[in-house]
């Protein structure tokens, strides 16, 4: 039996960076993937959706180009070609992942891994390898609720991305970020979309003001019908479509996309053979060093149930690989930006305003709307704002939200500022280039301190 210093199970955005980092540190490494190298992110998530969303966004901008003096006649969508573009991107990146693994001497196995004991792993029951350390990075998969009828017109996101055509109308079940991204993308490409969310509002992860901004645009400008605070009931799938009832309203569409959440993948792993067990919710518990309760086994990414984001898995991966190989343990990072590719985009990082209120933490906020920004007016993109959340007394920047054009890029500089423990005072003294979207961070910091230059002074509030 061949034995490796480190065996990584799962080759997604957690697994493959872990394997490469461990190899860089001199370990002999194997990686086992049962489906597609690159994982959900590269094959069925982040990357393919962004390929489609980028195209949808361009189409929308072409349609609105007239306002800037550009006339494009007869622009139309060839979704099959769009989907082919997406497939090319995925294939290219998948190849790149394998190339990187090979170049770092990481042995790649395709098959389902299962523990024989804590140091022995079987692959598809026909091969057994030894592992001094194991990093579990098996990720998550879409949940298909039991109450949905079985029908080719009812799909989850992975199957939806495989389509080479779009339906005329669709119901998106679930107003989380996956549901909303898909809804916006489809609506931008001309699909009549209805979003059904059981909770009181869509996108509960972000602050209320950001939600309001996005929801308004989705409803007013994209024509998306959004139903919140009620369940989708009496669902029937017939030839040609899916019908359901939300409260008193009956809705019908050609397709139903289920985006109600994701569940961890531990099936077939035989965790118990290694002395591990999934917790009540199916996740593998880990500490800040990515250690499980078994000394030689680490876990990272969605399967740990902390923050289910690719870049978070990657950050954990680097820490886990270093902790598996080196003697000196290191905590993984916890400041994780969250980007949502709705229309408009959202980027958030750190402490939100709503969360601060829940915790009773004294904060100040400073907001700057793009409507007051020269560059935004020039570019004809005036929806949205950036917002800082800072400590009420020290001005420490604790969190940020960006909504609007480039919000997912804008959040990067906010992340750097928060990670390096900058204060609003420091940020107001940082010179940011004009005219850019980025300079709105400085204006928002001034607003936090009540010193905004390009904003009307706040009226003194009467007590």
């Amino acid at each position, binding site marked *: 039996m061949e034995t490796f210093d480190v065996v990584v199970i799962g080759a997604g955005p957690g697994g493959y960076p872990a394997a490469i980092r461990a190899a860089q540190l001199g370990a002999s490494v194997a990686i086992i993937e049962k489906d597609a190298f690159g994982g959900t992110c590269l094959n069925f998530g982040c990357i393919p959706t962004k390929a489609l969303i980028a195209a949808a966004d361009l189409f929308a901008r072409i349609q609105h180009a007239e306002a800037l003096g550009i006339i494009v006649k007869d622009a139309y969508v060839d979704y099959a070609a769009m989907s082919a573009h997406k497939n090319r991107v995925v294939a290219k990146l998948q190849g790149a992942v394998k190339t990187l693994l090979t170049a770092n001497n990481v042995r790649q196995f395709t098959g389902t891994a299962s523990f024989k004991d804590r140091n022995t792993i079987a692959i598809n029951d026909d091969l057994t390898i030894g592992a001094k350390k194991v990093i579990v990075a098996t990720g998550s998969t879409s949940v298909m609720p039991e109450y949905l009828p079985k029908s080719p017109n009812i799909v989850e996101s992975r199957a939806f991305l495989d389509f080479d055509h779009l339906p005329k109308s669709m119901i998106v079940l679930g107003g989380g970020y996956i549901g909303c991204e898909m809804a916006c993308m489809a609506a931008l490409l001309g699909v009549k979309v209805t979003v059904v969310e059981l909770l009181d509002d869509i996108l509960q992860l972000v602050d209320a003001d950001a939600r309001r901004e996005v929801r308004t645009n989705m409803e007013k400008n994209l024509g998306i019908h959004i139903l919140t605070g009620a369940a989708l009931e009496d669902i029937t799938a017939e030839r040609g479509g899916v019908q359901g009832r939300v409260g008193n309203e009956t809705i019908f569409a050609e397709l139903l996309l289920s985006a109600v959440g994701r569940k961890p993948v531990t099936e077939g792993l035989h965790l118990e053979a290694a002395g591990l067990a999934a917790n009540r919710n199916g996740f593998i518990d880990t500490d800040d060093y990515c250690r499980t309760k078994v000394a030689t086994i680490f876990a990272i990414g969605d399967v740990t149930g902390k923050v289910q984001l690719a870049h978070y898995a990657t950050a954990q991966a680097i820490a886990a690989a270093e902790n598996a190989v080196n003697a000196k343990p290191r905590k993984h990072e916890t400041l994780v930006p969250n980007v949502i590719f709705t229309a408009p985009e959202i980027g958030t990082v750190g402490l939100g305003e709503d969360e601060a209120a829940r915790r009773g933490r004294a904060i100040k906020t400073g907001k700057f709307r793009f409507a007051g920004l020269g560059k935004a007016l020039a570019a004809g993109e005036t929806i949205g704002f950036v917002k800082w959340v800072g400590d009420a007394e*020290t001005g420490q920047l604790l969190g940020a939200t960006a909504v609007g054009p480039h919000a997912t890029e804008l959040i990067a500089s906010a992340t750097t500022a928060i990670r390096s423990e900058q204060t609003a005072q420091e940020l107001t003294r940082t010179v940011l280039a004009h005219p850019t979207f980025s300079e709105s961070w400085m204006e928002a910091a001034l607003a936090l301190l009540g010193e905004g230059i390009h904003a009307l002074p706040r009226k003194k509030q009467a007590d």
Partner: protein
Amino acid sequence: MAVPIVMPKFGQMTEESTIVEWFKKEGDPVVKGDLLFAVETDKSVMEVESFEEGTLIKIAVKPGTSVPVQSIVGFLGTPGEPIPEVPKPAAAPKPAAAAPAIAPAAKQKVAAAPSPSALAVATIATPPAQFRISPRAQALARESVIDPTRIKGSGPEGRVVEKDVKAYLAAKGYGRLRVSPSAKRLAAKEQLDLLSIPTKDGRIGVVDVERAAAEKPVPMTKIRQIIAERLSHSVVTAPHYYVTVEADMTELVAYRAALKKAGTIFSLTDFIAFAVVLTLKEFPQFNSATDGQTTRWKSRVHLGLAVSVDQGLMVPVVWNADELTMTEFSTLSKALIEKARAGKLSPDEMNGSTFTISNMGMLDVENFTGIINPGEAAILAVSSVIDKPVARDGAVVIRSIMKMTLSSDHRLIDGASAARFMNAIKTRLEDLETWKPLT
């Protein structure tokens, strides 16, 4: 016309009290019976009600300030009326020379600035009156978030000038510190000296400052300071020694359960305490006190019962326990313990004990020892009743066993007496004939 609010006198011995908290703000309306403020005396925390109506127009004594009883602490009146001048409270009179065996009344002993060597983290102290510093030096120290009182001044009369601060910062390697902007502002807010915050590589982040802030010394509550002082005094002055016996509680536990079934409820503590009272009558030297020169016998048994409460330890006292029937004793002690838990004991209800029992039976302990209450000869520590295998008539049987340990002051009591005293208690607890007539 403004009506003065005065600091009431709690109990015979209280000379000064500290306002812990005002429940009203200046300008708040007050009606009769409203709680005005909370007071910490040298024995407990009390709430003070208003006997007048009006508006609280002035708070003259801020929380945390200790003033003699009967001092004016504020005024009630009508809004807008002139506030009379508050006479400076006279210095608290020296505690009266009370019964010699009682420990000296606790004085405020919170150090204004803790000595730097004793603490890992230094706070930026309020400078002592004689500390001299130039405005520029002060500004640089403030900007650098360091404590200037640690700097040796080169100016006249040791005045610290700017170049002293610069030299000090250079000597301490201040320039090598990498302090995040947020960490610096937080340290300034928390009044922490950046040079005293532990760092491995010169980096100081918010987490480091938060940790240092959490480690700042916090003054103990007055009640805890009193406990600390009294306990230290006892350990230092009374040479303690310990005698432990085991009592077989099997029959008494069964007897108590039978009584309970019949509708008469006594706690196990009632039996133990009453056994102690009976035994103290037999061994009067355990109900006495010494100052090292004289001994003083107490003709009455006032039994202290140590009770653990949220803010620390309370010892309600059952006065004249030797005169009470078992039922009277049980009723009285139960009421006192409830009052202690509610923080409602009056000073006279926690004063004057002649012997103390500390019962940790409900806390699942094998054995422990107590520290003698100053002014007493001994303390009895009662542990849990535990089922154990023991030898009886050459066979191993399971019995309910309870350990009791007596801490005695060797100046008053010798070992053999303690052994006899403890065995007398044990015998009473094990002999149901003691209890049948009493219950």
